[in-house]
């Protein structure tokens, strides 16, 4: 589905990603773990096209298309979704209006008809059950006055409505209490299918108890230094990131 080759990216002239290689197939869940400042979030932002990051080298092919050449909205149309670490507030714009606008743009790009308000509302209410969202949420402004947990749930709701092929969850577990974590993870699990793939970016293993990855990659200093199965996450949890660094030193 997506193939990342030798990806280098920098922000304000400072290189953060120093040659990422990663291949993800449909139906897979990949976890990207790593210490603070290792470039995890940068990878998520670069894949979704945040303008602050400059790609200096490498390629990303998504479903046969050159992803890096596409505007962020085109990537969204193609099926790339980023669940933001810090979801953005848009005062005065209701959740349903925002989400309907997004969905209809995506549908239009695929040559599908736009949904009218009634059709959309029906769909939205169905999807809201997945993340146990209260109905009052429909008319509340996007993320404004939301608690941390509500914001993250809102991200997953958006994902449920937009049905992306590749969902990138950027630290979706940060700031969540255990109940919210369960709701969010079960939402993500319900949306999993053999046709879509998920990248879970996280610092802690905790989330991976609920969203079980097929592969775990450890990102240190802009490079993937170790890849393995879900047991790698447990190893990291037990030993911390230092043991990887030591391993790296020994092999150097």
């Amino acid at each position: 589905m997506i193939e990342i080759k030798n990806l280098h990216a920098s922000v304000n002239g400072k290189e953060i990603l120093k040659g990422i290689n990663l291949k993800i197939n449909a139906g897979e869940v990949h976890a990207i773990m790593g210490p603070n400042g290792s470039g995890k979030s940068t990878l998520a932002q670069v894949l979704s096209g945040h303008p602050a990051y400059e790609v200096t080298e490498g390629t990303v092919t998504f479903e046969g298309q050159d992803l890096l050449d596409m505007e962020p909205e085109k990537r969204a149309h193609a099926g790339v979704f980023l669940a933001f670490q810090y979801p953005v507030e848009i005062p005065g714009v209701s959740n349903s209006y925002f989400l309907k606008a997004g969905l209809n743009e995506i549908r239009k790009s695929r040559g599908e008809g736009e949904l009218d308000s009634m059709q959309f509302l029906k769909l939205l209410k169905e999807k809201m059950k997945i993340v146990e969202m209260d109905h009052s949420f429909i008319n509340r402004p996007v993320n404004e006055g939301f608690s941390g947990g509500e914001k993250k749930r809102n991200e997953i709701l958006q994902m449920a409505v937009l049905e992306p092929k590749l969902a990138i969850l950027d630290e979706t577990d940060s700031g969540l209490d255990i109940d919210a974590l369960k709701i969010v993870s079960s939402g993500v699990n319900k949306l999993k299918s053999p046709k879509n793939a998920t990248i879970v970016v996280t610092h802690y293993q905790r989330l991976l108890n609920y969203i079980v990855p097929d592969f775990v990659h450890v990102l240190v200093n802009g490079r993937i230094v170790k890849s393995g199965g879900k047991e790698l996450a447990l190893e990291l949890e037990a030993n911390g990131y230092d043991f990887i660094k030591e391993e790296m030193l020994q092999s150097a």
Partner: protein
Amino acid sequence: MSETIEELVSQEYKYGFTTDIESDTIAPGLSEDVVRIISKKKNEPEWLTDWRLKAFRVWKTMEEPRWPNLKYAKIDYQSISYYSSPKQAKKLNSLDEVDPVLLDTYARLGISLTEQKRLTGVAVDAVFDSVSVATTFKETLKEKGIIFCSFSDAVHEHPDLVKKYLGSVVPYADNYFAALNSAVFSDGSFCFIPKGVRCPMELSTYFRINASNTGQFERTLIVAEDNAYVSYLEGCTAPMRDENQLHAAVVELVALENAEIKYSTVQNWYAGDKDGKGGIYNFVTKRGKCLGAKSKIAWTQVETGSAITWKYPSVILLGDDSIGEFYSVAVVNNRQDADTGTKMHHIGKNTRSTIISKGISAGRGNNTYRGLVNIGKNATNSRNYTQCDSMLIGNKCSANTFPYIEVKNSTSSVEHEASTSKIGEDQIFYCKQRGINTENAVSMIINGFAKEVFKNLPMEFAVEAQKLLGISLEGSVG
């Protein structure tokens, strides 16, 4: 991002065409003689000529205000023509007699003066340069005792009413521009809603400046008697011209006991080009007086046009339990300057006022909110709530807020909230990541920002205003 943002703002002004029509325009310059000529052309009674002359004499002693946060070239009052009217065959008996060229002009502006084609909900008075060219639905309204006509007609047909209320809210010596207007005002609209009548349709005046080198000085007077209700809309456009044109209007509203007046404006005068060449200088005095107990006056304005805007629609809350409201969206782009806000004078007991001001600055625009909340000694138990929000698009524009609050008793309360935000790269990226392109994202963010004001506009106008906001800012974000 700022580059992209900047691109979105510069869309061509849609209403910038000129109408080729023969007009009767007097030579530039201002003197007592000019005042007399205007009055004579309008065949006015002596009392009104005298009133104009008194205003002119006061104006001569006054100085143009320097306190606004506005920068504009000095206005040469002697180089402006103070009267211009399209030549037409005398007094019109019906709309069919209106020059087709004029009808076509209004049609291009989206205003149909043909009654049967017009949405039944709105009656229109069309003012072209210095005169009113047509008023629709006059007869329908007359059946209810409502008077809706040009100011000139009102002077002749309802002199007692005009005499009673003209200058009763904005005296001719009120300020520099009001004095100028009082001396040379040419036309405008007059509305009178008698006791107990709820006006069944929206009343609307559409102002169009066409002739070059002229000023437009209209005067609007709306009186709602006891228990009456009226919703009035005002729209304005002008051709694109390289030189600046002066617009100095006066609007007076009078609400008697338990009456309600809603006054909505969508101001879209030509704003000048992106380098600040041309555009209308808009110096307007708008004031309402809640004369009766429990009366209510609400101003809603969407200001997107004009090179310079100087405008403070205000309410004098004289009657006990009266209510004043002000809802404003002011957009500046390119080199536009706006200094706008409101004054709420609380005089009666238990009076309440609400101020919601949303300023949007883009390009090199400069947007100032200036407001006064004055709660007098006897205005016990009065309340004001003020909210001033500014939004900046790009990093070459500015926003300022100057709130003045004076409370002279201890039982009243005043609340003031203010915020400044920037359309962030993050907001736009968030929208784009959800599939929405930049242009739609900006339009969505801005309309969300201005929503509290739009919801106070009549439905048809709200849609127009939303579109207008999108157009005014097109090119400012990309």
